[in-house]
Structures are given as C-alpha cells and as structure tokens.
C-alpha cells in the first residue's frame, strides 16, 4: 500500500522536502512507518523520527488524515492515508 507523508517545521528542512510517498506492507503501523522514514533519512534527520533506542520520538506528533493518533503497534495505516508529521514549534 502507499501512504503520503507531509512534513512541517524543522522536520521539513531536515528531510529536504515537504512531502513524499512511501510503499508499506498491508497492515503496517504508524510505528513501522516512522522507523521506515528514520531509515530512509538516516543521513541527518534520524533523530527527528526515533530516539536512541529506535522508538518513535515521544515529541513527534503523528496526524493521519487530519486526526492525531498515538504512536504504537496497534495503530494501523491504510492505503491512501495522508500522514503529517508535526514537530512541535514554539514562540519567541
């Protein structure tokens, strides 16, 4: 199945694009998506996606079809899903 990933904030700059598409096995979870992206962007942007243990960064907001979803193995994706990864931003 294919999902579309959209990036924002510092993450968009780190990966060098605003959006991209990714092929995933049927029934893949958001955690598996994040790990796949960490691997794809291993050169510089890995820390945005996963912590040192390889788990989804707890501060990475995962939004599937405009709904925030918790990270975890039970949250599955479907073909055509649009996934936005929001890195928290601040004021100043």
């Amino acid at each position, binding site marked *: 199945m294919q999902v579309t990933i959209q990036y924002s904030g510092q993450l968009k700059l780190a990966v060098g694009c605003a959006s991209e598409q990714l092929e995933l096995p049927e029934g893949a979870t958001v955690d598996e998506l994040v790990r796949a992206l960490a691997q794809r962007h291993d050169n510089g942007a890995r820390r945005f996606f996963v912590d040192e243990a390889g788990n989804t960064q707890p*501060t990475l907001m995962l939004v599937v079809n405009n709904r925030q979803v918790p990270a975890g193995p039970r949250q599955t994706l479907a073909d055509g899903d649009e996934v936005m990864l929001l890195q928290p931003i*601040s004021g100043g």
Partner: protein
Amino acid sequence: MNRPLAPLTDEERAIYEWQIWVRDFGEEGQQRLKNASVMISRCGGLGGVVAYELAAAGVGKLVLAHGGCARPSDLNRQLLVTYESLGRPRIETMTRRLLDLNPRLEIVAVGENVNEDNAARLVEQADVVVDCAPMFEERLAMNRQAVLQRKPLVECAMFDLEATITTVQPGNTPCLACWCPSVPPTWKRQFPVFGAVSGTVGCLGAMEAIKLIAGFGQPLFNRMLRLDLRDMTTQTVSLVRNPNCAVCGSLPRA
C-alpha cells in the same frame, strides 16, 4: 470568572463601541474583558502582539513575563520593542508602549521569563494564560501550572512561515504535555521567522483569549489550527488527550 463585573464608563463605551457591536459579545462581553486578567509568557514577536491586541480590546489586567534587554535582532518582529530601547530591559518598553495605547490597563510587569519557581505565582494572577515562549522548558512549566490551577491556556507557536495554535481547557482537552511531553531533542532556540508570521498567530491567540473571557464563539478546544503562510493553506488537526499524560492524564473531565 463569576465575580461581579465592574460597569463600563462612558469613555470605555465610546472607545469599544465598534466591538460592542459584535454579535454575541456586546456590552456584557466588554465588561468581562474589563474585569479579566491575562498572563502572557514572553511578549516578543508573538506575545507582544497578543498583549497589544488585548490592551486595545480593553482587557483590564495583563500579567507579563519577559526577561532580558532589547537586542537588534528583536526588531524584525517584537513590535513592543523600539529602536531607542535597544540595550534596555524589554519589559520597561513593553509596559510603556501598552500604557500609551491603554492607560486604564493594569500591568503586572515581571522582568524574568517563566520558570518552575515563578510559574505558579504568575498563573495564579490570571483568568487566562497565553503561552508565547520560545523555550520548551518555559512552555512545559506554564502548561503544568495551567493544568494544576485549571486555567485555560492558549498555545501559540511559529516557525519559518508556519504557525500552530490550540487552546487547552484542562480536563476537557489535551494539554501541551499530551503531545509534547518533553523538550524536543532536535529543537533549536533560534529559528527563521518573519514578524508578519508572529503577528498573525499573535492576533489569533488574542482572539482566542477574548472568546474564552467573554464566553462566545468556539475556541480551539481539541483542535490545532495549522497555518502555512508560504502557500496560504490552513489545516485543522483533531487532537486527543493522552490518558498516560504525566500532567493531565489523571485529571477528570471538568
């Protein structure tokens, strides 16, 4: 905010005439603003605009926290800072600029940024809190206190040409820590931004505070509005409480 409301003076009726005409707001809404207090964490590019709009709208009391002295790099976005004030404490200039606009305004000016030691005292003085700080340590301390004291909290943020805003109603909506439980490890203190971006989200934050105080409209509860001024797109994201949130997870619905 159920205390008796001091009435408007004739001068105030004249000054706020155009907004008193707003549907669902009226003179009672204006009285609520007059009798309300708002705490703003940092009054820079973002919070300075929140403060200016709330001073213009007739909020009775502002509690402002902002440390340090004005620097040249403030001037592209921090509209309460002036060229003449460079090198001087920002909070002094901010206070003067706000009183120039609204001399009836009561200001509690604190020349330091929010931290774990002062957050409780600052939040205690306010009906509504608006978080505009750049450091996540400040934002998380403010959020913790807002949740503990059950005060609504408007969360404003920006980066480059992007902005996000959401409003926390402790117990009923996710708090900041539900989706940002710790300082993001990749966050950088200095980041690209235009003053027009901070000003945009500052105006939205002020409008959220006005709606919360006056009790009309639909604040951004359980929703995050995301703006990208680069292509002028908007997105509304549905947010969910995190039942395992260390700050609000055990809080019953209000």
